[in-house]
């Protein structure tokens, strides 16, 4: 392959920033993260980028490549058009710390707001539990999540409408789904889904599913079933009628 041009977001001392142009040699099999590292070594030693495993397993190197939320370590240069500069910028939904690094601490706070796992008492003779594989397949799908927060980045409720105080975002809806569908769990998180976690804001555009590097079917398998549970609990007409009657009597 040949020389490729890049436009990489660089923050300045005052907290603003702009794109700077770089070029570097692209070789076979290279991913965007390799190119960023190469640029770092060749011409920009203080270019900040967050990364770890470089194998799509830790979810650290999230950024936007040509405007698409991507893991830089899993985006191959050979899949990008190189006749124009490759744009690399930080995730837009979170505040930038420096260059490509964003402050994702908000996400860690959201997890604390979700009620923890609460298993039922062990019921097998040996003091453990029995669970069939078929009953955990769906939960295992959700637990593949590497917490890269690309789904949070792309979600318009957070990205465009900045509802960070009212909506926990697709990542944590999936976290709730994994708990709610866990065969051993006894907790009930449905009231919070409606009142505190803002599940109603999601209007199922499925952007999160599209960008998930783990190919978790976030919307169809996770969020929609949770929405159904909220509907069952709060908007079922028969249930509401009974509740209404009971309330009048008391």
């Amino acid at each position: 392959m040949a020389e490729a041009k890049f436009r990489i977001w660089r923050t300045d001392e005052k907290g603003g920033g702009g794109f700077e142009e770089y070029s570097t040699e692209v070789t076979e099999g290279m991913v965007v993260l390799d190119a960023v590292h190469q640029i770092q070594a060749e011409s920009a030693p203080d270019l900040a980028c967050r990364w770890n495993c470089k194998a799509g397993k830790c979810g650290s190197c999230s950024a936007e490549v040509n405007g698409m939320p991507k893991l830089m370590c899993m985006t191959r240069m050979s899949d990008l058009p190189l006749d124009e500069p490759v744009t690399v910028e930080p995730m837009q939904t979170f505040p930038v710390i420096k260059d490509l690094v964003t402050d994702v601490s908000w996400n860690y706070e959201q997890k604390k707001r979700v009620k923890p796992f609460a298993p039922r008492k062990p019921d097998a003779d040996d003091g453990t539990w029995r669970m069939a594989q078929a009953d955990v397949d769906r939960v295992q799908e959700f637990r593949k999540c590497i917490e890269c927060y690309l789904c949070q980045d792309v979600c318009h409720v957070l990205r465009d409408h900045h509802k960070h105080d009212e909506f926990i975002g697709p990542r944590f809806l999936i976290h709730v789904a994994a708990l709610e569908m866990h065969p051993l769990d006894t907790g009930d998180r449905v009231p919070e889904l409606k009142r505190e976690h803002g599940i109603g804001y999601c209007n199922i555009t499925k952007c999160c599913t599209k960008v998930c590097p783990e190919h978790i079917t976030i919307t169809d398998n996770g969020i929609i079933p949770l929405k159904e549970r909220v509907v069952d609990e709060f908007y079922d007409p028969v249930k509401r009628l009974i509740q209404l009657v009971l309330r009048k009597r008391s």
Partner: protein
Amino acid sequence: MADYQQVDYDVLVIGAGGAGLRAAIEASASGVSVGLVCKSLLGKAHTVMAEGGIAAALANVDARDNWKVHFADTMRGGQYVNNWRMAQLHAQEAPARVRELEAWGAVFDRTGDGRILQRNFGGHKYPRLAHVGDRTGLELIRTLQDHGVHRGIGVHMERTVIRLLLDSGRISGALAYDRERGRWTVFAAKAVVLATGGIGKAYKITSNSWEYTGDGHTLAYDAGAELIDMEFVQFHPTGMVWPPSVQGILVTEGVRGEGGVLRNARGERFMFGDIPDNYKPSTAENEEEGFLYVLGEKHHGKDSRRPPELLTRDHVARCIVREVREGRGSPHGGVFLELQTFAEWFGKRSAKFDAEQHWKKKLPSMYHQFKELGGLDITKQAMEVGPTTHYVMGGVRVDSDTQMSRIPGLFACGECAAGINGANRLGGNSLSDLLVLGKRAGEFAAKFATENARPGAIHSDQVESATRLALVPFERSGNEGPFQVQHDLQDLMQDLVGIVRKEDEMQRALDGLQQLRAREAKVRVTGNREYNPGWHTAMDLHNLLTVSEAITRAAILRKESRGAHFREDFPKKDTAKFGKVNTVIARGPDGSMQIRLEPIPPVPQELKEAIMAEGGGQLPEELR
């Protein structure tokens, strides 16, 4: 005077992989205040890369398994220079630690009757690895993380500790910088647990990420603790070799555990040609038997034995190196690992077998990794693999029961501590090690903090000298860059202290390391202290150089081949001289690295019997 913020804890845990998280949870459960320092973001540590599983004698798949067999397997894998007491505690307590994870929300793959499924792995007699497809490490770290966040642990992300602080020989805290702004934090603590992981970045080809620069090893050594077994560095036999940008990334042993076959460029299944004598009785005699073993089925009415691809990691790695050196390697300098032979064989037995679905279910992240990084479909094509620096058995010398080093209040667990694995670690024993010994480290650190309730003093001169040293690179002129020194160090260790070692090459390595030390002292960093990778690399160099020297000195001293340590000039075991000793490293009064051999305490009779029961009634020479 350096400007720093001070945070006080009873117990400070440095490192937030599996071991650190488990230690923090345990310490916090006993009621003390706990701080957890992560070099990266929480939940991103290298534990997420662990694929195969957690070794624990649950006996869910084979009822004959028990802790004694697991103990004997671990000792045999470690060639009997392990800390036998740690190996014993590990084997005894691992099942409880795995069940506890399930109680905290982990969702392991299931057996037909709904229990935790266990898979075969190299060196383990029975199917023993509790797993979740091939992403067990992620399950483990996420379970601990999610359990831990509700316990009031103070989490400090993207901070790197550069110095341990002492007060009259006792630990009193640690000094760290944050990546975001480069500010200093002093963590004052009554007890400190090191759980910083490995040293992979001392080598060019490694499965480890940038974080693994021997921080805990060096912090402990600099503070006066001892390191043991540093010559034992595990080269995992199967890392990716192509494309170049992913060289070294791990290809799980689970691929071989599920029937993967190694072949050279001539198509020969070369592992059948080189089976060590002590493993002959437990290795399959032909392809059929090996595949039956994978399925857990009998061969001619007897228990089938493991395929040769599942021999210990050190042996498989050396066989691959030999094939490549002798000109039978794959196009990019590795060998082939393929699933097609098994699929074809299995397809003949069962018409319903769908190879593509089968491998996607069994090895989802491997499928993903090769598809997306290598453009290769492992269900249809052979992978190219070669050895990659994976794990260091050596580390901080700690007490077997409490995990405390010789510095009062300083504990270590996980990869940065040593003892349990001896000369070679079995796959799956790392995740169980970090649960069992991580828990112990947390428990005893909390106990120490409670019993020594008066905290040690923070001495400003220690903080001052460490911060000054860290900031010097900004003031230097010249053109020595940190990345170049790091690359040259990695090349040196890869070439001279790698899988196959020789005295003269290692002596050259020592000279080279000295020159690199001199270059490190001239490294210049540009830019400012905010998220500056050049500066961070400059600070890591001291650690990389320290562990590299320790590895080299220990490897020179052990003039025999044992486990992961292979000497071309001493290709055999020399049990009389080296079979009952550990190498021990400490800093001498003049600041130079001192190394000595120290005898291993005798193994008690009960444990000897457990080993004999698995060794055909024979006691290995090391234990006689």
